[in-house]
């Protein structure tokens, strides 16, 4: 049984925060330099009352409106998020109801970030191959903005909110999931983390104290913390090896892969990875200038945007890496995908 990506869509919240806006708010930040290094000029941010399920709902509705996939065909919903509506129930149950999906539809959340889309494809492929599902709706939705302290430059300039929807199907035409490869190293768990708010460290007065770090960024322990240098070192160590493992599995060479869609961390890091792996620029698209790093959304969002340039049969490798640490890659053989762009 073959699993194919049959349809794709994404949704961005309306509010746009430009580098100019951040500069006006924080006169000491050198936003011109930040923009040059990160390749990010603006990012979209969810409204105060807009959550990841709202964004994912909008992405899914767009997919149903613009593709031939009917909602009653969906028999499994996978929702990748690290900003669920509640500690419980699963946000996917809320989405099943809002999207009017069948009550015979499975629905689970999974907590992954930048590798999440690869995990979603791997799980969808496994569900279809095992005949547990025929049409899987994979949603990614993230609102890191809600975890970010407004005066924490290290993360505020990078991250944006977004959601995407993908249908993986057993009998529709589409992009074939050829192979996947994943990996984990929880030793890096503290380098990209929201330390409190879960059961290990519940909210308490003292931990909400604002602390200024050596770079002048301010945050509490209920905010997102990122050690950019550690993340960079991790990426250099793991990502080239990950790509090689998947190439070995598929028997392809890097030259035979037509397009590499990397997680869009920031332009600086992605450019360095590209040169380190000796990949030509035209094979490695960047799409973060107007959206920033949208965590689990970056890969499907980039894929949606470049889809018009992809030809059936072309070989596309997707590569995700980050929070966890967690990483994964997926080899696709491109086909007829119904894409609804912004």
């Amino acid at each position, binding site marked *: 049984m073959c699993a194919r990506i049959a349809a794709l869509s994404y949704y961005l919240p309306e509010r746009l925060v430009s580098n100019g806006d951040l500069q006006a708010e924080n006169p000491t930040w050198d936003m011109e330099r*930040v923009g040059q290094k990160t390749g990010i000029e603006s990012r979209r941010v969810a409204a105060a009352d807009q959550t990841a399920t709202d964004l994912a709902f909008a992405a899914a509705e767009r997919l149903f409106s613009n593709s031939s996939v009917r909602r009653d065909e969906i028999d499994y919903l996978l929702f990748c998020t690290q900003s669920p509506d509640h500690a419980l129930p699963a946000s996917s149950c809320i989405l099943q109801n809002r999207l009017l999906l069948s009550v015979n539809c499975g629905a689970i959340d999974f907590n992954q970030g930048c590798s999440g889309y690869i995990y979603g494809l791997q799980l969808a492929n496994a569900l279809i191959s095992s005949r547990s599902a025929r049409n899987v709706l994979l949603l990614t939705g993230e609102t890191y903005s809600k975890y970010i302290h407004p005066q924490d430059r290290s993360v505020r300039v990078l991250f944006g909110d977004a959601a995407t929807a993908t249908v993986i199907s057993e009998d529709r035409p589409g992009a074939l999931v050829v192979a996947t490869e994943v990996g984990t190293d929880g030793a890096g768990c503290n380098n990209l983390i929201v330390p409190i708010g879960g059961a290990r460290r519940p909210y308490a007065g003292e931990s909400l104290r604002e602390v200024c770090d050596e770079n002048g960024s301010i945050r509490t322990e209920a905010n997102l913390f990122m050690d950019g240098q550690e993340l960079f070192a991790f990426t250099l160590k793991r990502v080239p090896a990950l790509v090689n493992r998947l190439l070995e599995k598929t028997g392809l060479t890097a030259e035979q892969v037509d397009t590499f869609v990397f997680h869009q961390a920031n332009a600086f890091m992605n450019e360095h990875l590209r*040169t*380190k792996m000796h990949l030509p620029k035209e094979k490695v698209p960047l799409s973060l200038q107007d959206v920033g790093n949208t965590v689990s959304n970056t890969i499907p969002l980039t894929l949606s945007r470049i889809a018009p340039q992809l030809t059936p049969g072309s070989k596309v490798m997707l590569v995700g890496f980050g929070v966890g640490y967690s990483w994964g890659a997926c080899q696709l053989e491109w086909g007829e995908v119904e894409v609804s762009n912004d």
Partner: protein
Amino acid sequence: MTNQELIQLFAEALECEASSIDPQQPIAAYGEWNSLAWLTIISLLDERYEIQLTGKEIRGFVTVNDVIESVTAKASVA
């Protein structure tokens, strides 16, 4: 890899003249030696010498010389 080559590399990352970098000085004395500059240094070291610095090591560096010594030691092991 010579000390001078490393200082040249730091100067590139800091976008300044190599002659303005004094190995005895604390890193904190260079205002432009911020988290973005470190990312460039990590990337240049990886690109030119395949040497990786971790965030933990970086936080332990006080002077420019500390960085030079650490990188030189890594190069000799590699």
